[in-house]
């Protein structure tokens, strides 16, 4: 086809996006796509490189994801791949990316394997993965007095991975902490009362939950309806995210603990305000975390192309490694060794602010505190090699 050129006379870089645009998870894909589009627009407005993109719907199926990745690379000849909310899909596309030397930016799959055990030169992640979430959660929980912990979650990769990481980090931080048991429910579960009632009867000090999306909202509703927090405190990543709190309205269970990488009103900085304003102007809604991930992906890519001064993929990869940019959450770096983005994470509690339910008692954990160590990464990679 035609190859549009940017003002600098370079060939446009083409990104093929494979993400989930049907079904329950499509809300994230939409956010990240909008964030990415915003970044692309901003870069172009500043006279930066031109970035083209096309999207494909993987329907949350990993086989579809690779099938589209192949189409994009072989037929559409995209230079970069990006996506996908389904972790298994991210891993599958990542593997294809590696074999065909096409860089892949993961802005949806949170599996720690993407940049951890299965990481390689051609994969980048612009969102905090489950290793980071687990570590952040462990830090937060270690600051509480709870020792006997029950783990629960949605029975899928994200849930298991968060819980596993959290548990292994907790063990290293405080060997006195004890795991009482695990409960796993089906993704898409609509009625959580039996699970909560069962866990409650075990009387743990703390319930740690690894769940997301629609399950999170349904779970929080059940927490409120059963009055669980009065008996047993609950921890859940993104529990005070607007995506969770907005649908819950005044039915959000006050007192649930959690971590969160990004809120449109936190961090309360000029950079974030500008981003929120720009996003709102474009799409008439506040950006959620996935919008940030897509946005960062676009910014990283644009700035790397500029830095590389070329549209050569290998050169862009070199430029991306260790690249630090300004983002709504402060400085963000693509870590050179594992291509994992380093951003800070907040933690806090669901509470009432000015009569409205929101996050209270917010603190920030710096990227250094929560990134998996390079040692860990090396160990994980060595393990899969053998």
């Amino acid at each position: 086809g035609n190859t549009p050129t940017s003002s600098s006379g370079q060939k446009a870089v083409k990104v093929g996006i494979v993400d989930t645009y049907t079904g329950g998870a499509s809300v994230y894909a939409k956010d990240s796509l909008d964030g990415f589009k915003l970044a692309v627009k901003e870069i172009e407005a500043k006279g930066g490189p031109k970035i083209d993109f096309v999207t494909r719907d993987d329907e949350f199926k990993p086989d579809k994801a690779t099938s589209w990745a192949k189409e994009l690379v072989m037929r559409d000849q995209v230079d970069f791949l990006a996506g996908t909310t389904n972790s298994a899909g991210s891993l599958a596309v990542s593997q294809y990316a590696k074999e065909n030397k096409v860089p892949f930016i993961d802005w949806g799959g949170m599996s720690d394997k993407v940049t951890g055990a299965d990481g390689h030169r051609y994969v980048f992640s612009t969102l905090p993965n489950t290793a980071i979430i687990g570590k952040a959660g462990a830090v937060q929980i270690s600051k509480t007095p709870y020792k006997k912990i029950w783990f629960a979650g949605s029975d899928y990769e994200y849930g298991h991975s968060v819980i596993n990481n959290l548990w292994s980090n907790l063990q290293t931080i405080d060997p006195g902490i004890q795991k009482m048991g695990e409960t796993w429910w089906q993704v898409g579960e609509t009625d959580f009362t039996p699970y909560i009632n069962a866990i409650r009867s075990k009387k743990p000090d703390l319930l740690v939950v690894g769940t997301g999306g629609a399950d999170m909202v349904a779970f929080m509703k059940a927490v409120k309806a059963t009055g669980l927090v009065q008996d047993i405190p609950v921890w859940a990543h993104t529990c005070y995210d607007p995506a969770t709190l907005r649908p819950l309205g005044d039915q959000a269970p006050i007192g649930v603990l959690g971590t969160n990488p990004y809120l449109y009103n936190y961090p309360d900085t000029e950079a974030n305000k500008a981003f929120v304003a720009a996003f709102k102007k474009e799409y008439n809604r506040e950006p959620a975390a996935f919008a940030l991930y897509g946005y960062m992906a676009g910014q990283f890519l644009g700035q790397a192309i500029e830095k590389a001064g070329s549209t050569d993929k290998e050169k862009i990869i070199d430029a991306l490694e260790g690249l630090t940019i300004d983002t709504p959450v402060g400085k963000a770096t693509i870590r050179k060794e594992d291509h994992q983005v380093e951003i800070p994470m907040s933690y806090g509690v669901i509470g009432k602010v000015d009569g409205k339910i929101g996050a209270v008692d917010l603190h920030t954990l710096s990227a250094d505190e929560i990134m998996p160590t390079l040692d860990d990464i090396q160990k994980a990679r060595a393990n899969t090699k053998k």
Partner: protein
Amino acid sequence: MDIATLLNQLLIGLSRGMIFFIVAAGLTLIFGVLRITNFAHGSLYMLGAFIAYTVSTSLGQGHYGFWLALLVAPLIVMIISLIIERGLLRFIYNRDHLTQMLLTYSLVLITGDAVKIIWGAEYKSMNIPAGLRGSISLWGTSLPVYNAFLLFIGPLVALGLWFFLAKTHLGKICRATATDREMVDILGINSTRVFALVFALGGWLAGLGGTLIAPTTAISMGMDANILIYAFLIVVIGGLGNIWGALISSIIIGVGEAIGVLFIPSVSIVLPYIIAGILLIFRPSGLLKSVW
């Protein structure tokens, strides 16, 4: 494990079974009378939930929203079912099974995307109405009021269905149609109208199930597939077309899952299939008599 927890879990399982029953009753009714495997039943349930959301939020998530939704949403779903029946299904009654399945499956695909076009991809949530919030303390454990409400609604629906089928003229005609459609025609009753009625009633039940589940969960795409598998298993285990069979198997699955969660909490995902597999292996043609 103390006995109170077990009892409470039993009640929770029962209330879980009630939603299953309401949805599966509609499906089994359609099975029994129309002899159609309605894959779109889950979609109607999902539509019920989304419409309930729209109705209740249009009243600002207030106290009346839910009750209005409870009234209106199932009715709207019923009208949609009626349109489906008159517009599509009635042309394929004399076709084979798979063709009918395929038609209803195409409706699944269409409604899935239609819901997304109308309501967007984001999941929705509606509130539990004011009077049904919180929980009741029972033997030192707690049972959410909403579950208690379901425990009340479920039998009400069962009773209503029983009354309709056993006591009303139309109900009797429905039962007669289930056993011998042609004979109903011979007696001068328009059986395709009965089909329309039953399909609409089935749709109403699916919509009711969707409305009732809506406050407890996140209303999202994908709800359809989840409930569909449950409803199918329940209908088959109960004996195709047998409403009371559906009631029993709903309770078995609901309670079975609730109790299962207590003892093997980490693999609850396999529970419904294990229960269904065992029941079908030991009662290959369903718990109660099938009308087929």
